């Protein structure tokens, strides 16, 4: 496993910070945010991102984070250098950022407004002039899995998925299916995103989705707390090497956990709001648990989507109640986003790593900043302090704008 996160760029620092309940949220340093209503984020310290192969030169942050996390994961999996891996694939969920700020927006600003119609010729001319060489090719998220595959000689399937905030979870589910269906024996799977750039931050501000608690950044992400006022934007990447069990055992690989089940669904309600009954989230959880051959009674821990928005946390709680019934209050639930913010498309992959480490260490990281109970969020969110507990199975939830929902079930690896 490899992570590039605001809580560290190696899995042990990442886990150590999560268990310690350390917030990675701070005022945004990357650009001038004075004009934004939300001015805080959980930023990756780019000095911690390892150097990359030259094929990644000139590529954007999303590609570089993905590449770095893949390098770390492949090193961690201790895959011997081979000229080629005919049955290894790559699936990465990646955010959509493709053009630099100036490429994307200078042409719009230069278009002359004096004309009654939009000044297409002025726009076009500025666009053509401003485009850096190979801009589209270098920055498309669609090329990330192929480049990782080429770097390591992985000759199996490659795919980019983009289910917004459910992407990271979706990619791991897709990798699981490839292995089960015999399309690959080994898959490099994960997610990468960075929406911490001027237009990215603006687009979430416009939706009114972000916390405005600028004066207390480290307290702003408070999932399930009664005072929550929106999510805090995060960024990063996480990549996991998934392997068919016999393949892993035969080469003596260290096994963190089993990816036991996956479930995907859609609210089919509205793109602007989650279904008030949590239909999609409930279906994803139910399907993932059934896919793992389990029943809800057998789930010990949930890494919640837990964004810290008023709607998500209430509706996720409702969906958990629907799936788990009376037993809902007995399941440990925590939100990684309370510490590293919402890393959007990468979130599910980072949370998958957290889940696997929970099973490995038999320790549950807390939901920090939990102070004020919300009567509509009344489950055990492991508030503020980590817990040591027996955790055999873990469920990870991710829900997207648009209603796409995805859940994964992980099972502890017994020696």
């Amino acid at each position, binding site marked *: 496993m490899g992570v590039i996160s605001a809580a560290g760029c190696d899995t042990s620092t990442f886990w150590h910070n999560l268990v310690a309940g350390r917030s990675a949220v701070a005022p945004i340093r990357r650009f001038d*945010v004075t004009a934004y209503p939300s001015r805080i984020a959980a930023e990756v310290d780019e000095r911690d991102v390892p150097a990359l192969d030259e094929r990644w030169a000139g590529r954007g942050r999303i590609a570089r984070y993905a590449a770095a996390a893949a390098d770390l994961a492949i090193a961690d999996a201790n895959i011997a250098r081979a000229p080629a891996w005919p049955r290894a694939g790559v699936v990465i969920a990646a955010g959509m950022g493709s053009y630099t700020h100036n490429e994307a*927006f200078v042409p719009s600003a230069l278009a002359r407004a004096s004309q009654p119609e939009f000044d297409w010729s002025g726009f*076009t001319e500025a666009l*053509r002039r401003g485009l850096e060489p190979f801009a589209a090719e270098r920055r498309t998220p*669609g090329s990330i899995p192929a480049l990782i595959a080429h770097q390591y000689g992985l000759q199996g399937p*490659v795919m980019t998925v983009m289910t917004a905030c459910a992407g990271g979870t979706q990619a791991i589910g897709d990798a699981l299916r490839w292995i089960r269906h015999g399309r690959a024996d080994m898959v490099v799977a994960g997610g990468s995103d960075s929406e911490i750039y001027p*237009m990215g931050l603006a687009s979430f501000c416009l939706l009114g989705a972000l916390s405005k608690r600028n004066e207390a950044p480290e307290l702003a992400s408070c999932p399930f707390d009664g005072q929550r006022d929106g999510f805090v934007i995060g960024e990063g990447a996480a990549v996991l090497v998934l392997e068919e069990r016999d393949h892993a055992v035969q080469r003596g690989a260290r096994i963190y956990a089993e990816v036991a089940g996956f479930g*995907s669904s859609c609210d089919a309600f509205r793109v602007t709001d989650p279904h008030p009954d949590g239909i999609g989230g409930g279906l994803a959880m139910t399907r993932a648990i059934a896919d793992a051959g389990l029943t809800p009674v057998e789930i010990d821990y949930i890494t919640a989507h837990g964004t810290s928005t008023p709607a998500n946390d209430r509706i996720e709680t409702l969906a958990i109640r629907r799936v788990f019934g009376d037993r809902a209050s007995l399941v440990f639930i925590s939100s990684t986003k309370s510490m590293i913010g919402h890393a959007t498309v990468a979130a599910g992959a980072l949370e998958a790593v957290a889940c696997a480490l929970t099973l490995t260490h038999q320790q549950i990281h807390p939901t920090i900043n939990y102070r004020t109970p919300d009567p509509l969020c009344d489950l055990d969110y492991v508030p503020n302090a980590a817990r040591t507990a027996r955790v055999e199975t873990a469920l990870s939830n991710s829900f997207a704008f*648009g209603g796409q929902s995805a859940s994964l079930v992980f099972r502890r690896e017994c020696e």
Partner: protein
Amino acid sequence: MTVTSRRVVITGIGMVSARGNSFAETLSAVDRQERADRRIALFDASGFSASLGAEVLGFDPRPHFRMAKALKLTDRTTQFAVAAAAMALAQAGWPSDETFCERLGVLIGVSGSDLQAPEVARALQSDGEPVPVDQIPVFADRILSRLNPLWLLINLPNMPSAHVAIQFGARGPNSTVMTDWVAGSQAIGEAADWIRGGEADAVLAGGTDTAIQPFALAAFDQAGLLSASPDGRPRFVPGEGAAVLMLEEETHALSRGATVLGDIAGYASASSPVDSRDHALTRTITAALGEAGWRPSDVAQIALASLDGTPLRAREDAAIRAALDECADSVVRVDYQPAVGHALAALGPISLCLAIGGAADSRGILCNAAGYSGQAVTLAVLPRPSSMSAS
């Protein structure tokens, strides 16, 4: 593939293309060998080296939306996808029964998003001096006060899949593939796996995209793709459109009396560096054949990924020869790009459907898709021409 007990069939095809606003219209226009390239009418593209494109014309999304309110939250690619999905559902005779919809998935491939350049431009346009967008506070102030607050939701590439699910109540698995130009074909292959593995009984799968937007045209222009060839025509015609297939588990389709238009027999994805001698299409063709249980001689036609006369086509031809050996000579190669333009992630699904529609017999079809970073997808499909003409 180890999970093969459930077979996947096609029971509906919906299409929006430069040659027509339905599958039937497109098919007959292609039969008449009409070319697609016209002067772009959607906006003034005269600033590019060539302003020709294969544009979808006279498209009205409204009849395809069950809930008209959703329209104002959609961009062109989402509208294409919803329209194509509506037509696929109608042809499949899909009931709107809720239990069926719990097992109806959606998987649409798209290469990205157009950033809604005119919307952003209107927000940044000034009356006097240009807005200094490199000064972030000025930029942010403009965007935050003038841009549609729902810009992101309209723009996210997962919206075609989301809106298709919303319009038709599909609560089965739902995802979006964004592997550049192979995304649409890959969505069809992955959706077939959802059905084979029992995650869904039916999936609306395909691709939607548009290259008729300034950022795509600028990128193609930069790559020299829009420059005229010696005969005066641009080699590359940017296109747009969508094709969505209703994929269904065979017994599910037969038990409700649906007409089967074809069978998804094989799928493979791989990638190879663009400068390597090995081409991933060799591997995907071989693997798709293997999964279908076909010999090279079982292939009657191949829908090609690349345009005649380009280095990409030379590589594709070599890959076909390497995979099919001497059978490569007898296979009919069809290239729908001159007819429908390069509809990016939608080109593969559109080509596949046109190949199915044009099949004279029920022998095998291979459909290739190739991305510009070396990604390759091949689908193997058995057409059923008798039911195609009956429907």
